């Protein structure tokens, strides 16, 4: 029972690790370029989840001073990781946008977005 409890306590971290590995697997093995980008996004989500979980304080309020009338609970969730993740999301969006626009260009150039087919096309060209 202790093991189950330990897993439940750390479910955020375990989830982050599993998502990270799923994303990494997709990026490295999937031949479809768009799915590679999706893999990158899954990895980003994993890192964000980990970072936000780090800042979580059990029973803490949102870090807005004067939100509650009574000043009994002095516990606040650490706002710094959340703020950093906002930056991280912006970065993630720009990476996704740029890579998708590159994929459009690749599709225009090769007529496919499967890596193996592109490699075939390139090797045929090299033989000629």
């Amino acid at each position, binding site marked *: 029972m202790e093991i189950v409890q330990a897993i439940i306590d750390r479910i955020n971290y375990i989830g982050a690790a599993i998502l990270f590995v799923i994303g990494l697997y997709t990026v490295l093995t999937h031949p479809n370029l768009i799915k590679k980008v999706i893999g990158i996004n899954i990895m980003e989500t994993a890192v964000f989840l980990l*970072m936000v979980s780090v800042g979580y304080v059990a029973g803490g309020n949102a870090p807005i001073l004067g939100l509650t009338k009574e000043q009994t609970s002095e516990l606040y969730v650490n706002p710094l990781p959340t703020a950093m993740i906002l930056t991280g999301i912006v970065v993630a969006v720009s990476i996704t946008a740029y*890579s998708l626009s590159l994929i459009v260009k690749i599709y225009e150039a090769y007529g496919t977005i499967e890596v193996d087919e592109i490699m075939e096309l390139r090797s045929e060209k090299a033989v000629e």
Partner: protein
Amino acid sequence: MKRPLNSMQFPLYVLLLLLMGSVIIPLTTEKFNMKAKTVILGTLVLSWGMMLSTFINVLREGPYLYNIGNWGPKIGIQFNIDIFSTSMSLFILSLSILVIIYSLKDIEHEIYFKQISVYYSLVLLLILGMVGITVTNDLFNTYVFMEILAITSCAIISIKRKKENYMASFRYLILNTLGSLSFLFGVALLYMVTGYLNMSEIYIRINQVWELYPTNLLLALGLMLTGLGIKAAVFPLHVWLPDAHSTAPTPSSALLSGLVVKVYIFTAMKLLFRVIGLEIIDTINIPSFITYFAVVGMIMGSVFAIGQRDIKRLLAYSSVAQIGYIFLGVGLATELGLSAGLFHVVSHGFMKSLLFLSAGAIIYKTGKRDIRTFKGIGYQMPLTMILFTVGALGMIGIPGLNGFMSKWYLGFAVLEKGQPIYLIVILLSSFLNAIYYLPIIISAFLTEGEERNIMVLEDIPKTMSIPMVLIASFCIITGFFPQIVMDVVSRAIPTFL
């Protein structure tokens, strides 16, 4: 210590100036004319001047920590302005100015003319990222600058509208993002243990508690070093580099190969010695692992380069080998080793950009990329080929050039550490360098071309030849007087150990 407030803020001004420049350039001019060139060079020269004055200030009065917006180290971003960061930023800015002066002419035939001003906007952002990553003392800030670097360095490859560029740039982007994300994962793990993102604060905290959280520390170090290894093209992780560096427009290749890879090495050095500390990494034996990878890279990079026919691809593989030298110096984790590594950062930056620029001049003038067609090219383009020879001989390690001096220092560092086997590897790698650089020089000067070999002074534009001559003369000067760089570098190193 009392300092004038304005000059204290110069590093931040440099970053803001570069950011402003990159926004202004595409806004002001439709066409790429004199006005745009003035803005680009003015921005760079001004920031170079400010960095120089900061550097002199730091040399005279010692290092300081600069808090942006005066937020404390717990929540704010901090810059560490010391000899290391200012001298390396100065190196980055100087080399970028020279490459950009060269690029003003060369870029016109490499990319579509309407995108030239966008290109310079990206280049300024790239320089912003490099300077920022060098001066920052904050791990999350490092990640942000890394992503700026990732996007801009891919964009200055894919801006050349060729099929290969899109693929090379996409692969570079994906691997780069993998690297950044591993780094961020590691940052989160370190934050979990210490509650700080500031490097100096983490160093204090982690040395108190690391025995309690070995898993976190090991995972964080592994992920962050792998991420930086992908970005710095350490040997088994270098797969993106040859495509990306060889297909890019020439000025981009020079910037990417000479500078961008290096700033990740700076980050790795900061991570190992400033964030974690020598005591911990020695306990878990990380430096010797780094040297193993470095040594394999030194040999394999050169072996791959021997098989290449395309001149820029050859230079790109040569970079993989040279990164190995730098990491060997870093992995020795001694004062001599680190200074040899940093010295090689500077000398490789100058030599490799000289090689890429002269290769670019050959492509600009004759359109030849295949080294088998270089017969007699030394007579068509004597100046360019002489400059290429200076760079190539420096890479091989001929005495009198800076490449020799960095191998010399590295050799001493290896012997001091008591591992003469690495000296043999350095010599072997030099021989391999000679195997692929000398045939180019020989076929350029000593064999008959298709036409009769008549010595003519080529007419490459002045803006292209002058930067190359300046870089080459720097290579020769530091070959004879290595103290110029070494004095600064050896004063910067004690802050790491």
